[in-house]
């Protein structure tokens, strides 16, 4: 494939939304409305097809963030306390509260747009847990994307969206982000998007760490394999300050297929036990006191629940089981009437299967392949590998401005969700320290950022100039892997084995091996230390050099090259931040063997910034306000 035959397409807009998932749809929905009122243009660029792009592609069985404030169910403050406790004190209250005060509106819109939400006999939503409501969510993403597209359509020719464009680099003008470049994965076109404001909503990062399954099952990551660190790379390369890059998320899920456990724990009241049938949350309750005040608060933070389970495994008490059989039998036993009990059993069975079929079909297939009937047989659960996802119980992302009316002093700098770089906004998995947004909160944060970004466009009406030289340099850089392949592939008899370059797949495996073995991956029980991290960082420098020799034989491989470069930057910021925070605060996510306890002086944010001018990393400790 000849890298010289690429047409350059220049697209001009006012607000550029990068991504196609829930946050991008929320942003497109909200921004279109304010753009129309203020005569601004909005353009969305998605690497996939919006109908099924992002983490909600497969569907969901629950909406994990709904407060029901108008019904008097919960308050915003209660939610903020819950999130802060779950993250061991490390959360931006202003950001969490901003999402929480708007999220009910988003959920009510989803319902009107056509999302079936479970209702009880009085017509109220059926709660799974305190903050979670049950949905028939197979088409959740299709519905939300239709609303986003309809909203864009209201802008006429000023509202556009591009699918199958992979975004690689930010475009900078002085200290401001004024666009992005990327390429089509369908035909030989290099794209330059010029904008007044740019919103980064490209999801979290998967496959940075070596997964537990490395054969075909490599693709069965808990969070989707196509979320490859583009968000973090984009904000880092623009020179934005990042936060919580150490706060990875290690979910505990049904083993291997990673089916959800939320409905089992919360809706069906199931227990998890070790192989001997002991409930480790009870037998190991004393351990939680070592992590007070968070460990002794209810509900127990996700990472500590993980930790107690990991201690069981270390002592050889595995496998760990979700006692689905006992839970179902108990629910049915509560019904004295035999006929009614049979009906209830049928209903529970359907609900249990729908939970998987709505959002992790592979887990249903796993049960079918193993002849598992949940009402008769317990199922194994396990800790997955680490993920970067600030919309769940992780927190990594860009450091963004809070809202004027909620953010204390230095947490507000003019526009909601703007990063430390002018004109560059972030939301969903791209913004940090505002965990537990989930699907509805990500959509909502996209809305908040979308509106604020239109306000930025109005305040900065000057036309954006990007020089031809800048475009040419970016184009050469982005297409370089094609050129390298073209130049050298004829040298050997196997295009994958060549001393002059490295293919993206092996590059990814090398990154995963480093991260797993040195940065506390699944195979080492999530343990690491300064010595290991320093060694890992040393190997990472070789990777950064070899990244310049990534080679791509076609457009699909070109995308894989860049995905893995993105992952590598996510990885480096992670290692540097774990090193910086000299304590262990989330023992079920990672454990610093050289600093095994939580320390009071680290009740703070660990931030970092890569300086585009010098190429140096700066580590910044910031107070929790």
């Amino acid at each position, binding site marked *: 494939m000849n890298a010289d035959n690429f047409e350059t397409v220049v697209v001009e807009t006012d607000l550029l939304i990068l991504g196609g998932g829930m946050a991008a749809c929320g942003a497109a929905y909200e921004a279109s409305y304010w753009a129309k009122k203020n005569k601004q243009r909005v353009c969305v660029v998605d690497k*996939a097809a919006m109908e099924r792009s992002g983490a909600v592609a497969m569907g969901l069985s629950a909406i994990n963030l709904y407060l029901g404030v108008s019904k008097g169910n919960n308050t915003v403050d209660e939610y903020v306390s819950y999130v802060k406790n779950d993250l061991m004190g490390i959360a931006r209250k202003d950001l969490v509260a901003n999402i929480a005060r708007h999220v009910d509106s988003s959920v009510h819109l989803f319902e009107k747009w056509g999302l079936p939400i479970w209702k009880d006999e009085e017509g109220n939503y059926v709660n799974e847990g305190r903050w979670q409501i049950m949905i028939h969510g197979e088409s959740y993403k299709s519905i939300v994307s239709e609303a986003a597209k309809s909203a864009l359509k209201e802008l006429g020719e000023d509202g556009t969206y591009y699918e199958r464009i992979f975004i690689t680099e930010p475009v900078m003008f002085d200290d401001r982000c004024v666009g992005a470049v990327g390429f089509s994965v369908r035909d030989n076109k290099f794209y330059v998007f010029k904008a007044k404001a740019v919103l980064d909503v490209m999801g979290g990062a998967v496959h940075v760490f070596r997964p537990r399954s490395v*054969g*075909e099952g490599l693709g069965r990551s808990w969070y989707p394999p196509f979320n490859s660190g583009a968000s973090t790379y984009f904000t880092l390369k623009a020179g934005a300050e990042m936060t919580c890059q150490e706060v990875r998320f290690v979910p505990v899920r049904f083993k291997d297929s990673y089916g959800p456990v939320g409905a089992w724990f919360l809706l069906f009241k199931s227990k998890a036990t070790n192989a001997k049938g002991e409930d480790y949350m009870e037998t190991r309750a004393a351990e939680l006191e070592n992590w007070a005040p968070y460990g002794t608060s209810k509900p127990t933070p996700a990472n500590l629940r993980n930790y107690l389970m990991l201690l069981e495994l270390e002592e050889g008490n595995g496998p760990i089981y979700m006692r689905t059989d006992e839970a179902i039998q108990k629910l049915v036993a509560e019904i004295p009437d035999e006929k009614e009990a049979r009906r209830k059993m049928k209903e529970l069975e359907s609900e249990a299967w729908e939970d998987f079929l709505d959002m992790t079909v592979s887990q249903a297939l796993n049960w079918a392949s193993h002849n598992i009937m949940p009402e008769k047989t317990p199922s194994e659960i396990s800790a997955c590998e680490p993920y970067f996802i600030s919309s769940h119980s992780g927190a990594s992302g860009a450091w963004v401005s809070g809202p004027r009316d909620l953010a204390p002093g230095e947490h507000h700098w003019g526009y909601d969700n703007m990063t430390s770089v002018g004109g560059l906004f972030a939301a969903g998995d791209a913004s940090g320290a505002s965990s537990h947004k989930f699907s509805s909160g990500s959509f909502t944060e996209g809305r908040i950022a979308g*509106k604020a970004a239109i306000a930025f466009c109005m305040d900065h009406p000057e036309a954006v100039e990007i020089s031809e030289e800048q475009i040419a340099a970016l184009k050469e850089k982005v297409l370089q892997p094609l050129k390298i392949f073209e130049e050298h592939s004829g040298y050997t008899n196997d295009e994958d084995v060549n001393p002059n370059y490295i293919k993206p797949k092996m590059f990814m495996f090398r990154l995963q091996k480093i991260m797993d073995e040195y940065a506390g991956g699944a195979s080492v029980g999530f343990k690491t230390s300064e010595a290991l991290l320093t060694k890992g960082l040393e190997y990472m420098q070789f990777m950064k050099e070899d990244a310049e020799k990534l080679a791509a034989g076609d457009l699909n491989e070109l995308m894989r090259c860049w995905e893995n470069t993105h992952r590598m930057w996510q990885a480096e910021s992670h290692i540097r931040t774990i090193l910086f925070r000299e304590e262990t605060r989330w023992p079920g996510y990672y454990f610093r063997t050289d600093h095994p306890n939580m320390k009071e002086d680290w009740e703070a944010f660990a931030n970092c910034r890569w300086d585009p001018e010098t190429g140096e990393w700066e580590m910044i400790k910031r107070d929790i306000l």
Partner: protein
Amino acid sequence: MPSFVINEKCDGCKAQDRTACQYICPNDLMVLDKETNKAYNRAVDMCWECYSCVKICPTQAIEIRGYADFMPLGGVVQPLRSSDSIMWAVRFRNKVVKRFKFPIRTTAEGSIDPDAGFTTGTDDLKSPVLRTEPDSL
């Protein structure tokens, strides 16, 4: 192989302007082989088993064979998706079959009104009030 294409059933979406599976795959895995006019999954170990291709295929030519590194052979989970509901057939390795049907949407496809009948309480771009608020709260 996670998703696979049944040769006999795939017609390369010849009646459409693009192949459905290629259009929908969130990881850009489905490709049309121009010589055979059949689609295929080009990187099965990058497949999430999200079933987007299975659900959209107009000739039901795509199925999923569970990841061979941890799933025994014989299990099949196959959906049939309509505009308002989805039917699932789950066949166990021991041949037991279970069927489920769930609603997926309460409105007609393409009918969404973004404001959903709510009104927005302000025109102020700098206020924290979002589109449809406070009505929709």
